[in-house]
């Protein structure tokens, strides 16, 4: 650690530093690359030995994935659950974030504690008692039921993220709009909303990713309507290698795109919101 940051003597220091950066980038990228090689190779190649480190550009594995019974339904379920989670957590979470940033009210500290408390609990475990509760109310094995659990995972983040986003917009802007004849609602719509929309989108995408990636609760709560993660997990023992890799690939690609889309907000969301 010391070597990488010591500029003395300058040239070697910079060289070591550059090498360390490249090495750490490779540490992240090479495993991903190897997954892509496997996904873009024919099923026979994936199961053969020794392996080439270059992809064949064959869509055989992906085609097998698409034809595998139940896989496309699982993919659709994943999208539906994640979409629903995204909408629910923003609709429920953003108003609270606004309240935290704009008002001082009795009970504010308690409310913040409740939100922060959710972080200290292994939330996927919630799925165990909810599985029973859902059977009673008819929510078992449904997209909505799972989306509600995933919303529990995502909504504390939505609250804290929107809290830090709203705090970044000066109250004076809103007050100016009020003096110009806007009501609280119309001032919010015309002044705050346009400014906050990119940030809200970013935190919505983040909620989507949380749900998209969740395995345990999905596996506990769905039986017929499996999500992609639950489906892959269930078939880990029996499915052929090329199916696993294609499935992993399909799981990873949206994540890559989403992290790229929200990269500017990552620090506002994770760093500051976590303080």
């Amino acid at each position, binding site marked *: *650690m*010391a070597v990488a940051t*010591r500029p003395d003597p300058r040239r070697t220091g910079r060289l070591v530093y550059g090498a360390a*950066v490249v090495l*750490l*980038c490779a540490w*992240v*990228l090479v*495993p*991903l690359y*190897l*997954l892509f090689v*496997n996904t873009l190779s024919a099923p026979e190649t994936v199961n053969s*030995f*020794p*392996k*080439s*480190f270059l992809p064949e550009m064959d869509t055989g594995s992906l085609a097998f994935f698409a034809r595998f019974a139940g896989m496309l339904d699982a993919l659709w379920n994943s999208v539906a659950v994640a979409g629903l989670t995204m909408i629910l957590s923003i609709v*429920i979470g953003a*108003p*609270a974030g606004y*309240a*935290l940033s704009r*008002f001082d009210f009795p009970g504010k500290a308690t*409310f913040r504690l409740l939100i922060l408390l959710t*972080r*200290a*609990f*292994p939330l996927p*475990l*919630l799925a*165990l*008692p909810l599985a029973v*509760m859902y059977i009673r109310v008819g929510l078992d094995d449904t997209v909505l039921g799972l989306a509600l659990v995933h*919303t*529990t995972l995502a*909504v504390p983040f939505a*609250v804290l993220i929107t809290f830090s986003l709203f705090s970044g917009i000066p109250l004076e802007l809103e007050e100016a709009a009020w003096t110009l004849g806007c009501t609280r609602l119309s001032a919010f719509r015309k002044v705050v909303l346009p400014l906050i929309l990119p940030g809200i989108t970013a935190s919505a995408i983040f909620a989507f990713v949380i749900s*998209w*990636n*969740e*395995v*345990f609760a999905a596996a*506990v709560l769905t039986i017929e309507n499996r999500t992609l*993660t639950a489906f892959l*997990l269930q078939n*880990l023992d029996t499915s052929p290698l090329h199916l696993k890799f294609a*499935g*992993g690939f399909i*799981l990873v690609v949206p*994540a*890559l795109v989403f*992290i790229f889309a929200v*990269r500017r907000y*990552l*620090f506002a969301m*994770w*760093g500051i919101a*976590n*303080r």
Partner: protein
Amino acid sequence: MNTRLLPYVLILPVTLFLCVFFVYPFILVAQEAFVADGALSLDNFRRVFGHWKFPLSLRNTLLLAAAVVPVQLGLALLMATMVNRMGRGRDLVLYIWTIPLGISDLAAGIIWLAIFEQSGFLNSMLHGLGLIDRPVNFLSYQHPGIVFLAIMLAEIWRATAIMLVILVAGIGLIPKEYYEAAEVFGATPWKRFLRITLPLLRPSLQTALVLRVILAFEVFAVVAALGGTLFPVLMGQTFVYQFELLDRGAAAAIALVILGISIGFTLVILRVLRVPKGARI
């Protein structure tokens, strides 16, 4: 609308939601764990603790956390300080380093499976170098050390980014004047890191460690993808009790054990890394 009431109206939906889907289920799970055959008892815990796999999965979970979290902390600190002094290319490097943040534990397990499985890339490489004649089945009961290593690498690969992001944001909050003053007095970069960055980063370190340690006790899908039944962990046992043994009481009991360990460690981390009042920036 009345301004006094407005904040309560705004926080009402999320409060109700968390009561129904967070507070209530935890009451249920506790109830389920402590009740057997309709009476208050510790039977569920006795059954769980008495099973030969329990000590093993507890040990595995703790061992994995102990092996993974310190490495991640060191790596995240290194990466965060490197990013901090980076000029050109900072955004690109940060994007690459935070990619695993969006990758699920199951996908991470599958990615490392591609490397460690019998016809995988590690075997291919060793074969190409002439070190082995036939592919070795690394992820089998003959190689428990390698199974552990694979799971460890996958966890480090996947979940360092979450600490990195928190630490980068935390370092960004440290006033530059401290560093300038230290430089005037001739402090080396290493000294500056030890005397300024580390102490002032304590709140972020706290958050990062709490989050990471709790997630480490929840480890499940990575292990399922790489170790299968070779490496039982607590969360996996919960799943087994719930589904294969259809024993909800026992599943709830293990859930409470995981919860207890998580809370215990959270309190320890908060205590050890506490920031004295008046020392906050």
